[in-house]
């Protein structure tokens, strides 16, 4: 691109120098032409006096005419040349103008190009910025998303933890339930249910055990059973000692309430 810019500059410089030279020559030439008529007037006065002189004067006139013609020719030539020069100058000027215009255009173009480049750059930058912004936004979004996902994951984790805790609780409950069932089966296997007690019997006995399951005490609560029923329950509880161990040590209960509520008479 620089090469194309430099080339039109040299002709322009030459054109300026040529114009200056031509202008100088024209100025001095015009000055000479104006001074010469004053010099011509003086010889005319001398010819009028002598024939020879006349002849000489004629000669001189002819010479002068020739000289004038030559001068005129020279002037014409000069004028033509000047016109030529002028034309050339005009052309040069035109060219120069064209060149200048071209230059301007080039400059404009260049500017435009620069502009467009700038614009492009700006655009690019803008785009870049936009991209950056978009990227930033995207990043932000991503981060937000990540944050959200993290939050969600954490929430999920938390909920899972809570769930697991709940499950652990449920596990605890089920362990406790299995402990209850174990004690139930253990006592039921040792309880001889007196005949005819199923009708509405409800008998509560609180049993105190020590770790290891040994029954160290028992106390009847509400009980609508007769002495034999109480006897049978007491015997069952005594025989149930040691009670089965809990599936988990923390489930151990020092006091266990046994509620004897037999169902309807069993069928065969």
């Amino acid at each position, binding site marked *: 691109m620089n090469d194309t810019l430099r080339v039109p500059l040299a002709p322009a410089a030459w054109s300026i120098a040529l114009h200056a030279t031509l202008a100088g020559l024209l100025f001095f030439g015009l000055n000479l032409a104006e001074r010469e008529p004053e010099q011509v007037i003086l010889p005319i006065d001398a010819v009028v006096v002598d024939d020879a002189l006349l002849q000489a004067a004629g000669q001189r006139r002819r010479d002068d005419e020739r000289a004038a013609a030559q001068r005129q020719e020279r002037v014409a030539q000069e004028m033509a040349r000047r016109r030529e020069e002028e034309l050339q100058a005009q052309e040069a000027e035109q060219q120069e103008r064209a060149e200048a215009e071209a230059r301007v255009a080039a400059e404009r173009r260049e500017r435009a190009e620069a502009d467009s480049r700038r614009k492009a750059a700006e655009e690019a930058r803008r785009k870049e910025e936009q991209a950056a912004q978009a990227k930033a936004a995207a990043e932000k979004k991503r981060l937000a998303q990540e944050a959200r996902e993290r939050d969600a994951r954490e929430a999920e984790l938390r909920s899972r933890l809570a769930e697991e805790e709940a499950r652990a609780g449920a596990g605890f409950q089920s362990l406790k339930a299995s402990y209850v069932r174990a004690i139930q089966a253990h006592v039921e296997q040792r309880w*001889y*249910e007196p005949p*005819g007690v199923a009708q509405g019997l409800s008998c509560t006995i609180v049993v105190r055990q020590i770790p290891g399951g040994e029954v160290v005490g028992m106390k009847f609560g509400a009980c609508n059973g007769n002495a034999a029923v109480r006897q049978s329950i007491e015997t069952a*509880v005594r025989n149930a000692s040691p009670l089965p161990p809990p599936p988990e040590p923390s489930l151990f209960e020092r*006091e266990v309430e046994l509620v004897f509520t*037999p169902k309807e008479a*069993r069928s065969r």
Partner: protein
Amino acid sequence: MIRRVLILAFAIAWPAGEALAQMTVQILRGMAESVPIAVVPLAWDGTGPAPWDVAATVQADLERSGRFRPLPRGQLIEQPHAAADVDVADWRMLKVDYVLVGRLAPVAGGRYELRYELVSVASGERLLGTAVPVDATALKRASHRVSDAVYEKILGVRGAFATRIAYVAVDGPVTKRRFRLIVSDADGANEHVVFESPDPIMSPAWAPDGRSLAYVSFHSGLAAIYVQTLSTGAQVQVSARSGINGAPSFSPDGQRLALALSRRDGNVDVYVLTLATQQLQRLTEDPAIDTEPAWAPDGRSLYFTSDRAGAPQVYNVGLEAGARARRVTFEGGYNARPRVSPDGRSLAVVTLDRGAYRIATVDTQRGGLQVLSGGQLDESPTFAPNGADILYTSRVGGRDTLAIVSSDGRVQQKIAASSGELREPAWSPFLP
């Protein structure tokens, strides 16, 4: 002894009003099949051999009830004769819940003193401590009474070991049949023939005082109802009306007899006969057969069998004039021969259960039916006076024998028949 003191100390060491237990366990059924007990042979304080092995009788009673599991005598590690000498820790190791100990001593007049004590191994408590005078001839009965006392103390239900049963024994070739009305102890021992005939004897029923039996006999050629006093053998004909005279049943007060009569019209219905006046009250009047009356314990209504609905079912009718019969059994296509439990809460009936006739109980309030026996042809149920067991006949190998099922269905047992067929048992009331 030390152990017992410790156990009691625990109970004392636990003051009342403490915080409630954190864990509640529901006990919904007793799975233990029977109660382990040690019956220690009684000490005999006289000279020579003991006149009766009281412990052996008690052991047999308890074992036969199905509700106890007496330790075989050979496994008794020690033989204390007083509660104070019972080391509960030792018996606990043998997994025995109760220990019965005692002694028999001769006293003046050829009588004996029977002392016995029952100890709970669980608590170390002495649950029974009794001394009774016994006639020389009543040692077996006294032994049954010990069984009754142990049974009641441990199970909360009065024992029925010292009761009797009546039944009809049939034997001999078809051309020379022999019908005997027999009364024996509840364990089948000690049989006495009350009445004997080549003609059928049917439907024995105990008077509420246990002193007499009503029954149907054909020995006069026609069906007639008799009441016979056991101690004297005196037989009184109470109904020999034309047609059917059947299924006598004493009222709870013993003054009346419910029975089935066809009379002249041939329509079998339920009547109530006042024994002292021979006054007859007709309770049902239905073209269908109404028979096998059984008194409710309060004496205010009768249960009976009727096929008025097409097939035999059990109905109840009040004794008041104009009372309408109310159907009681609805489960199954055949329910007959009702007998009422002593508490009036249930009926024992013969039910058609999957092609077989079996003994079942029916809840008189709620109507629920529970099949108890498992034979093919089980008949004639009769409640023990404590309501705990039902005696019935069961045809096994073409022969009727006696069997017992507990009224909760848990325990079944057979009573060996000496000979012939044993029919229509009737369990006595509690005897004095």
